[in-house]
């Protein structure tokens, strides 16, 4: 007995210490860039560039001010700030893409989850493969096609291309979700006197709400963060915020402060959504993934 106590006493404590230290190191490693960019957003230009790097500094809002005031001058060195416009574009394109995916994807997921028909697994898998395709691989053909059919630099074009990102998410998460909703609940509703469409609306959709929330949030995040499609398939008219941030790399210098401020602002919607939806997401994903 004494030996065991001694063992857990000594090694137990050491064990815990090592684990905690490693966790802290991982924590720092992962979050430090976020921390650094956030502090950069609040630093004056000189503070950013000094070496050794300053952790204690006088915070300033000049970067945020720079990027949010629409200054359009032709003089060299001034930045034509499309940042707010980019932010608006991001909201518009991402939300539209998501809505379109939901309206078409929910019935599709239901059909794939509920009915048995030829080629069902192939179709379902095909939707998943949209996510596999590296964007760089497909971007040039898409660019050429868009130029031909006149969808270059249009909102419709972007929303359509974004379906490659949002649709697979919606369909795959909701497909297993619908599979898990018991058929007998639908049958009970039919027996109660409700036709199939009302049954879908009243019984099935509410039960799939967590799945819809999870799928929507994931889809939103991925669409919001998209860079390649946004960069190549549109110019300044429709560019979302991911591309707008590039504008801060000017001929004169790298406006680190402005870029950092842009990053912080662009990340805010996602952070809010992610925190809000966290509980939905875990529940939605695990309910969808686990086969009973």
């Amino acid at each position, binding site marked *: 007995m004494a030996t065991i106590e001694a063992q857990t006493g000594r090694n137990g404590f050491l064990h815990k210490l090592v684990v905690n230290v490693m966790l802290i190191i991982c924590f720092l490693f992962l979050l430090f860039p976020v921390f650094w960019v956030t502090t950069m957003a609040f630093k004056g230009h000189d503070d950013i560039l000094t070496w050794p790097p300053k952790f204690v500094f006088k915070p300033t809002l000049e970067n945020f001010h720079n990027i949010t005031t629409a200054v359009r001058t032709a003089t060299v060195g001034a930045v034509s700030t499309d940042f707010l416009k980019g932010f608006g574009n991001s909201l518009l394109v991402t939300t539209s893409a998501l809505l379109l995916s939901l309206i078409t994807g929910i019935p599709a997921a239901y059909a794939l989850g509920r009915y048995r028909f030829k080629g069902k697994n192939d179709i379902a898998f095909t939707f998943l493969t949209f996510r596999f395709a590296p964007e760089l691989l497909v971007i040039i053909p898409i660019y050429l096609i868009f130029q031909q059919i006149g969808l270059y630099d249009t909102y419709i074009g972007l929303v359509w291309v974004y379906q490659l990102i949002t649709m697979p998410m919606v369909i795959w998460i909701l497909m297993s979700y619908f599979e898990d909703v*018991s058929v007998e609940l639908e049958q009970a509703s039919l027996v*109660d006197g409700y036709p199939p469409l009302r049954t879908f609306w009243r019984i099935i959709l509410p039960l799939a709400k967590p799945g819809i929330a999870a799928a929507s949030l994931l889809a939103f995040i991925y669409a919001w963060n998209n860079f390649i499609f946004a960069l190549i398939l549109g110019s300044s008219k429709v560019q979302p915020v991911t591309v707008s941030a590039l504008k801060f790399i000017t001929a004169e210098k790298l406006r680190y402060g402005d870029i950092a401020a842009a990053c912080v602002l662009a990340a805010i919607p996602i952070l809010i959504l992610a925190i809000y939806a966290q509980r939905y997401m875990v529940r939605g994903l695990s309910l969808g993934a686990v086969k009973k």
Partner: protein
Amino acid sequence: MAVVALRNIVKSYDGEKVLRDLSFQTSDGEFFVLLGPSGAGKTTTLKVIAGLEDIDSGEVLFDGKPMNTVPTNQRSVGMTFESYALYPHFTVFENLANSMRAPGKKHSESEIRERVAKVAKMLKIDHLLDRHPGELSGGQKQRASLGRTMVREPSIYLLDEPLTHVDAKIRFELRLQFHRLEELQQSTTIYVTHDYVEALSLGNRIAILDNGEIIQIGKPKEIYHEPCNLFVAHLVGQPPINVLDAILETDPQGPALFIPKGGFRISLSPKNHKSLEQVNAPSELKIGIRPRDIEILHGPDKAMVKARSDVFEPFGSLGLLSVIVNDIYLELLVDPDMSFEPDNPLGLNFREDRLLFFDPETEMNLLSNEG
């Protein structure tokens, strides 16, 4: 109330026949039981009647009207599911009220509340109306499920194994409840179960289903005393009927059945002998005797058959005794207050008038009227 008729229903699933030429007809207001083992097609039959499953061929008729093209939500059926299928996001009240709020139904809120309250009170779930199904026990869910069907006031009740997943103790109570609910007793009810006790207790008539086919339809007493084949005889009764290979002997001492594996003879009454002759019974056949129709005599000398006791299980109200006769095991129902040591010599008397005779190949009851 309605007369439900199924005519020549054939249904396949994935190429396999699930229902084979199924036909039966209930009478108006009948409590009709579908009894059979798992996988027999009982639930499928119910769903065909409700319109929830398609059929390959055949007709479903309510009061003589073909219902094949009528969608489920327009049929006046109420169904309880084995899994209860209560809507998890509705309260018990909303679950019960659901059918009254369907499109085309114009009930005022007060009417709805009144009817739901009445049914809930009858089923003793009126204190649970604000709860969600997730907060109910198995027995409460079963009653809520039944309540939902009753509020609908259908012409035909379809009950799918309502007591199967309920605690054994509550099952007894709930079975009585089925007897006492007038709605069920007066409406045409089709009740599915694999438990023969429920079937014998509740059914006006029982249809035995196996492998998608109806084996026999009859009143409970007929099913029990005149099973049309070995399968039915075996299905109904616990412990199951004892089945023995026998050889029909007509020798000068009198006709008898010789049991080779047991090494004993049972004298055959003239009545049975004559009946067997009339149907040209084969000389080798199978006989069945139910556990309660074998008597114990503690003095083995006077008995028909000499046996040795094996396992005795007294269960309070009944006792199960297993005995060995040469190579055969027999199950008997005895007085639970008796006591038996293993391997005691015992005498057995078979009640000859309760014997059942089966063809060894077809396993059909040789003396049954059904043929």
